[in-house]
């Protein structure tokens, strides 16, 4: 039981190129089990690319990623999916699945039969639908529900996947203030249940409110890594975003108030 609760994701010196453009440069991180980790950085800093590497969709040429103690490049996608669940910013719905059809897809890595999900799968889905207040929408088409409900459906699908790590990209992009906070509360609750959350977002304030630690990426490199109140400084905002800002502190919480872009 020595390492129980210790490192769940270890990224060692990962460098990634799209064609010949270096997008990630020597990233080395250790993420603890149950940690709520925030990824911030300007556009093109490599946040999404890093998430895609951890989800096994992209394979870095240099460096190694370990998830749950295993080298990710030695695992099949279906095995990665049993450890990491991804929550994308948006869901595409040309084919208009129903909410329950969609959430059931989260069970894909586990279903043993060729066709139907088992009683157990079904129970898990029903519980999760209920806890996300989606059960009354189960037969509705994805195109017919609000964006807040869509975001919940996305989260529900990831939760149904019973992951140890959840990779969340822009969890609050299209949401109003209430839903933004709601989503973050869900994520926080999950992290309390020992599910590691890695969330990438532009919303520095939102992340610093909820995250245990924050990584700041710029041009594929880690600029800073630590607790929000330590990491987020006026100098750093100026350096990374090129914006003059004031940092306000209220107890444990840190707020960035941007003033004007630097010339």
């Amino acid at each position: 039981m020595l390492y129980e609760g210790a490192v769940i994701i270890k990224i060692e010196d990962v460098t990634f190129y799209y064609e010949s453009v270096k997008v990630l440069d020597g990233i080395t991180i250790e993420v603890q089990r149950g940690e709520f980790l925030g990824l911030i950085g300007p556009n093109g800093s490599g946040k999404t690319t890093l998430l895609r590497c951890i989800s096994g969709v992209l394979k870095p040429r240099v460096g190694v990623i370990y998830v749950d103690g295993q080298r990710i490049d030695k695992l099949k996608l279906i095995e990665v999916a049993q450890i990491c669940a991804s929550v994308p910013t948006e869901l595409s719905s040309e084919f208009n699945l129903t909410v329950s059809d969609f959430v059931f897809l989260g069970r894909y890595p586990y279903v043993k039969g060729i066709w139907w999900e088992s009683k157990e799968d079904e129970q898990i889905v029903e519980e999760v639908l209920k806890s996300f207040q989606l059960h009354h929408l189960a037969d509705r088409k994805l195109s017919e529900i609000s964006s807040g409900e869509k975001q919940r459906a996305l989260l529900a699908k990831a939760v149904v996947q019973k992951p140890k790590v959840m990779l969340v990209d822009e969890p609050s992009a299209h949401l109003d203030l209430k839903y933004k906070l709601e989503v973050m509360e869900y994520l926080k609750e999950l992290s309390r249940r020992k599910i590691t959350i890695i969330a990438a977002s532009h919303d520095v304030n939102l992340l610093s409110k909820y995250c245990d630690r924050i990584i700041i990426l710029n041009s594929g490199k880690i600029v800073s890594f630590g607790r929000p109140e330590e990491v987020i400084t006026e100098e750093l905002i100026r350096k990374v975003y090129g914006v003059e800002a004031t940092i306000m502190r209220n107890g444990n919480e840190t707020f960035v108030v941007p003033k004007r872009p630097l010339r």
Partner: protein
Amino acid sequence: MGESIVRQKILRLVMVTVIGLSTLFILFILSLTLGPVEMGFSEALTSLINVLKNGGRTSNINELIVYHIRLPRAICVIGVGIGLSIAGAVMQAIIRNPLVDPYITGVSSGAAFGVCLAMFAGITIVKIPFYTIPLAAFLGALLAFLLTMFLAEASGGMTLSYVLAGVVVGIAFSSFTTIFLVLGGEKLHGALFWLFGSFAYVSWKVVWIVFVPSLSLSIIVLLYARELNVILLGDEQAMQSGLDVQSFKRLMIIITSLLTSVCVAFTGIIGFLGLVVPHIARILMGSDHRILLPTVMLVGANVLMIADIIARTVLKPVELPVGAITSLIGVPFFAYLLIKRGREYVV
């Protein structure tokens, strides 16, 4: 806690199967009554039962006609209806565009090219001349498909590469076909007839080679219904859900191309079926492929059966190519879809 979701789905599947099979049965017997030799519904049914009881041996002219002419034709219509519709549904799922049809990998152009080449060169295979055209069509379709596959893989194996490669290969083969048609003149009259698609010359020798592969390949596709659901999420999300997208797509493209080639080889190009039927099925039963695919099979068989019956009766005694009928029904439907939903798919 309501009714179990899975149980509900199974119930709906059983319902759709029962309804689909019963309408298909009625259409099937109806199609047995049609032809220059007049027969009533019950007459056709009893002829069928009698001749089947005797294992096809009979001297009664009605029974002979039912067994040797109309029965193989009806079975073949069902087989092709199933095959083309399933191929269409799968292509739409993996390309994630509901406006594509199974000919997208260029197989139909390849098949047409094969037929025209064989006729132009005057090739007949000794001993089995009846298989010359189907074989030429099948080889042409396979050639086109392999070229598409090669081009697509060489250009990265992305979804779009398959579509573009298919279009390019299709155009290339079509232009060759046009050249042959211009050079060949009268010799290729028969090829034109084939191009429109017809079931008029189906016999027992052909039925097995169409129906069995079509049905069994469709059943193999059914086994992958869950994966087809996952792929609806898009390539990246499907991978993150644990599906090996690239090899799955390759497998599906191979199966659907085989399926389309078999159908095209014996009955020519039957347009719009593979495009329209999955839509009808989706409107009826939703997008879960475990229900959708069986529905697609049943709707496909029913629709092609109706089209074939129309083709045989509307201008009696002249028989229209069934491809013309499906296109006639399909074009307005497609136009409607394009206007209503087309702008959602602008790349």
